[in-house]
C-alpha cells in the first residue's frame, strides 16, 4: 500500500504516479468536462394523491362487499 503509484490513485492531489498520469492523458479525450443539459419531462407516474384515491376507493368497495356478505339471505316474508 506504500507504492506511490497506488497512493496517487486514491488521492490525485497527493500526486499520481507516472503510469497513472500517462493513463489519464491517454483517456482524456473520453472525458466530458460539463454534463450536457438535461430536459426533464412531466412525470408520467401516478402522483401519491392519486394512489391514495385508488386505495380509498378499493377500501370502500371491500367494506361494502363485507357488509353485503354479512347481511346473509333475506328472511322470507311471513
Amino acid at each position, binding site marked *: 500500500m506504500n507504492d506511490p503509484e497506488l497512493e496517487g490513485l486514491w488521492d*490525485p492531489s497527493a500526486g499520481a504516479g507516472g503510469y497513472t498520469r500517462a493513463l489519464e492523458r491517454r*483517456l482524456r479525450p473520453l472525458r466530458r468536462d460539463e454534463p450536457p443539459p438535461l430536459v*426533464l419531462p412531466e412525470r408520467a407516474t401516478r402522483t401519491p394523491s392519486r394512489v391514495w384515491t385508488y386505495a380509498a376507493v378499493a377500501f370502500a368497495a371491500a367494506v361494502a362487499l363485507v357488509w353485503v356478505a354479512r347481511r346473509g339471505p333475506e328472511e322470507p316474508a311471513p
Partner: protein
Amino acid sequence: MRAPPVSPGTVDSEEEPPDDRARVEEAARGGRRAFQRLYARYYAPVRAVALANLGWPEADDVTQEVFLRAWERLPQLRHPERFGPWLLQIARNRCVDHHRRARVVGAPAERGALPPPVSEAMEVLRAIQRLPSAYRETLVMRLVEGMSGPEIASRTGLTPRSVRVNLHRGMLKLRAALGEELP
C-alpha cells in the same frame, strides 16, 4: 488467496451527506432544481458505469436515459440515502438492456475511423472493459472522470476501503494487461 472484487452493486455503508438526502426528497416531490443538482453531482459516476460497460459514444446517450428514468422512478425510492447505489444500479440495468437491444437489432454501423486521440483512448478503455466489473467501473471513475477515492466512495455507497482495494487491484491488473509501456 485473493478476496473477490467488491462490486459497486453491493451496498456496504458510507452515509451520504445530509444535503443529498434533502435534495433527493425534494426531487421526489417534483423539485426539478433539486434533481438538476443531483444530475450535476452524479453525472460522472453514471457516465463511468456506462463507459465501463458499453463504450464511447453510446455512454452519453445511456447516461441521459438513466437520469430520465431516475426522474420518473424517484418517488418509488424508499431509502433516499441510498440514491447513489440505486442510480448506479439503474445505469447497469440500462447497459444490459442496451446490449440486449444491440443483439436483436444488430451491431450499430461502423462510425468511420476515429481521430487518433480517441482511438488511442479506446484501446485503453477496451483493456479496462476486460477487467472484472467492480475494477473497471472504479477505474473509469478515477482515470476517465477524474474522481478521487473519497468521491467514488461517497457516490457509489462503497466503503472507502473497498474503493481503495478496487483501485489498487484494478490498476495492477490493468498494468499487467497493457504492459509497462502504454500501447
